[in-house]
């Protein structure tokens, strides 16, 4: 549900960057979204269609690059992508892990004309 405010942020950042570049239209927004983040691309797309109306970002394509979770084992330092919800290290079996990737949500680039 919190994608509404997030989508507003995406549009605000995009319009500011497009304005700086004196663009007349936003064609595409490239987003990077971690699979562990609580944000759902379909929801962002849904809000985007409504919120971007009558702006130069209306009709722009949203491209989501998803980032798989990367965990680092606190016991043996192995870095791995968890295969199930238990998050156990495949090397040593420890469940002591820290998240190194997978929580991000950022705009990588904006394509304009």
């Amino acid at each position, binding site marked *: *549900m919190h994608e509404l405010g997030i989508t507003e942020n995406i549009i605000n950042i995009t319009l500011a960057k497009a304005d700086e570049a004196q663009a007349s239209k936003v064609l595409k927004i490239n987003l990077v979204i971690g699979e562990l983040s609580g944000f759902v691309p379909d929801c962002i797309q849904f809000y985007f269609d409504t919120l971007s109306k009558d702006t130069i970002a209306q009709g722009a394509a949203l491209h989501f690059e998803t980032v798989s979770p990367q965990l680092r084992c606190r016991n043996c330092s192995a870095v791995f992508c968890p295969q199930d919800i238990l998050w156990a290290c495949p090397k040593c079996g420890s469940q002591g892990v820290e998240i190194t990737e997978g929580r991000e949500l*950022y705009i990588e680039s904006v394509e304009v004309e």
Partner: protein
Amino acid sequence: MKKIEVVQNVLEANETIANRNRQLLDKNKVFAINIMSAPGAGKTSLVLQTLTRLKDRLNMGVIEGDVASTVDAEKVQNEAKSVVQINTRNMPESCSLMAVMIESALKDMPLDNIDLILIENLGNLICPAEFTLGEHKRVLIASLPEGDDKPIKYPLIFVDAGAVIINKMDLLPHVDFDIAAFRRSVAGLNPKAEVFQISCKTGEGIEKWCSWILEQVEASAERR
């Protein structure tokens, strides 16, 4: 076509306001705790217990987040110095408190006369994990009827918690909750988190929790 490199965190707007909140709190020597849990785990009960036990030691304020009602604010009104209710029903987001809501609530609180603010977030184990408010510590309450698998199902909310509270310990004989397994999962995700086993109903463990708060408030005062 022209490609503009941006690389900007979409949550930055929230984080900027959260940093501002934190500076305002620090300037006024106020310690703030963000209390998060699923609905019904005992956030309001913990706030009430904390107010009752610590009211002679600290001046406390409460920020109550709720989707619509004011029932929680009414319950804590008698014990706190200052209570601000935030209803999120008419806001763009209704699943978590956000920094901007705290910013406006702080304007209504006598900060120079408050040592500790307890922020009761909305009952939700997903969204509040994403939004920092400017708090000094995050506290997560899990209660026995929810089951011991919550750290496995909702890891993010456990990762950043300064303390994890297991509430409703009085129900232990009646539910299948493996305390050791739960504590293992929490320690795996977040070895630094303090874990407290309490019952807001019987008062078990509340004293330890309150001592921890006093330590945190004192340590923070020393750092300033």
